[in-house]
C-alpha cells in the first residue's frame, strides 16, 4: 500500500517532466527565436535573426560533420536541437557514443548545398540553389565590387605613382556616411592596386618567357 502511494505521485511527476520536455523541444525550434536573444539585437528583424540562426546551425553541423563524417546530419541536428545548439556538448556526446537516434517525427530542414555542389556551382556559375545569396558562384573581385569603370578610368602606367603619392585615405571621420565611403574607397583602392600589380607581374612573366625563347 505504501509503495503505491509513493508510485502514483512520482508517476505524475515523471509525466509532467516529460510533457514539459516535449513542449520545450517543440518550441525551441521556432517560437523562442524571437525571445532567445532578449537584448542587443539592434535593428535586426525576426527574419534576419532566423536566417542568422540558420547559418549558425549550418555552420555547427558542418563543423561536426567534418569531424565525424560517419554521423549523419539528422542525428547531429537532433542532438543540437535537444541540447540548445551547444557544439561542444554535441561533440562530446558523439565521442562518447551517447547520441540518440532521432524519432521518425523529427524532420530536419534540408541541407543548403553540400560542398561538392557548391564547388560545381562555382564552376558553372549557375546559382539556382535554395540558398542563392550565400552559395552562389564567387565572382571575381572586380565584378564583386563593381570596379570595372574605376579600373578603366585611370591608365595603368600612372596607377603606381597615383596610389603611392596619394595621401593614405584613412582617419576617422565623425560623419557616419563619410566613414562608410572612406572605407569603401580603401577597399576599392586595395583591389585595384592588387589587380594592377598582378597585371604588371603577368606582363613581366610573359616578357621573360619571350626573352628566353
Amino acid at each position, binding site marked *: 500500500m505504501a509503495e503505491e502511494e509513493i508510485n502514483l505521485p512520482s508517476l505524475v511527476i515523471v509525466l509532467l517532466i516529460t510533457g514539459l520536455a516535449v513542449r520545450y523541444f517543440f518550441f525551441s525550434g521556432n517560437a523562442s527565436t524571437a525571445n532567445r536573444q532578449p537584448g542587443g539585437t539592434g535593428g535586426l528583424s525576426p527574419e534576419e535573426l532566423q536566417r542568422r540562426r540558420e547559418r549558425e546551425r549550418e555552420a555547427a553541423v*558542418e563543423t561536426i560533420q567534418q569531424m565525424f563524417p560517419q554521423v549523419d546530419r539528422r542525428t547531429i541536428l537532433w542532438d543540437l536541437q535537444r541540447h540548445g545548439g551547444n557544439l561542444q556538448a554535441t561533440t562530446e556526446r558523439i565521442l562518447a557514443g551517447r547520441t540518440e537516434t532521432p524519432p521518425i517525427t523529427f524532420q530536419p530542414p534540408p541541407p543548403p548545398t553540400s560542398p561538392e555542389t557548391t564547388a560545381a556551382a562555382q564552376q558553372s556559375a549557375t546559382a539556382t540553389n535554395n540558398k542563392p545569396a550565400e552559395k552562389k558562384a564567387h565572382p571575381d573581385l572586380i565584378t564583386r565590387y563593381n570596379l570595372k569603370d574605376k579600373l578603366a578610368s585611370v591608365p595603368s602606367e600612372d596607377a603606381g605613382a597615383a596610389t603611392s603619392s596619394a595621401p593614405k585615405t584613412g582617419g576617422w571621420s565623425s560623419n*557616419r556616411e563619410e566613414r562608410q565611403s572612406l572605407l569603401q574607397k580603401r577597399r576599392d583602392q586595395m583591389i585595384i592596386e592588387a589587380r594592377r600589380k598582378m597585371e604588371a607581374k603577368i606582363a613581366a612573366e610573359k616578357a621573360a618567357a619571350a626573352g628566353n625563347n
Partner: protein
Amino acid sequence: MSLNVAQRRLLQEYRSLTNNPPEGITAGPISEDDLLHWECLIQGPEGTPFEGGVFPAELKFPNDYPHMPPSMKFLGDVFHPNVYPSGLVCISILHPPGDDPNHYEKASERWSPIQSVEKILLSVMSMLAEPNDESPANVEAAKMWRERRTEYEDRVKASVRASLGL
C-alpha cells in the same frame, strides 16, 4: 541609438582599425546599421602562393562579443588546409574561450576578450602563410599541401589570378 557592449566595443575597434590600419588589411562593418556584421579584405602574404591576392571575408559577431569570438568566412575561393570548402576559417583564435575539450590547443591560443578583430585578421594572414597541418578543415587541400606542394601552390596562384579577373 543606444549601443550595447558588443556594439560599443566594435565601434571602438572599427575606429582604431581606421586610424591605424595594419598593413594589408581593410575591415569595417558593411553598414553601421548592423555593427555585428563586418566585411574585410586581407592581402595575401608576400613570399607565399597567396601573394598579390586580396581576399574578402565576412566576420559575424555574436551578441555577447567580446566574450565569445566572431566567425569568419572567406567570400571567395581560398584553397587552404585550415579553411573549409565553404570558406569558414578554422583557427584557434576563433574558438570559444577556455580549454580545448580535446586538449589540443592551449587556452591562451583560443579566443578571449583581450583579443581583437585586428589580432584575428593578423592571425589569419599568418595562417595563410603557414598552414597548420594538425587539424585540417579542408582535407583535400591539406593532403595536396603535404604531398604535392608545387601542385598546391600552382592551384592557389591560379585562383588568386582568377579572383582578380585575370
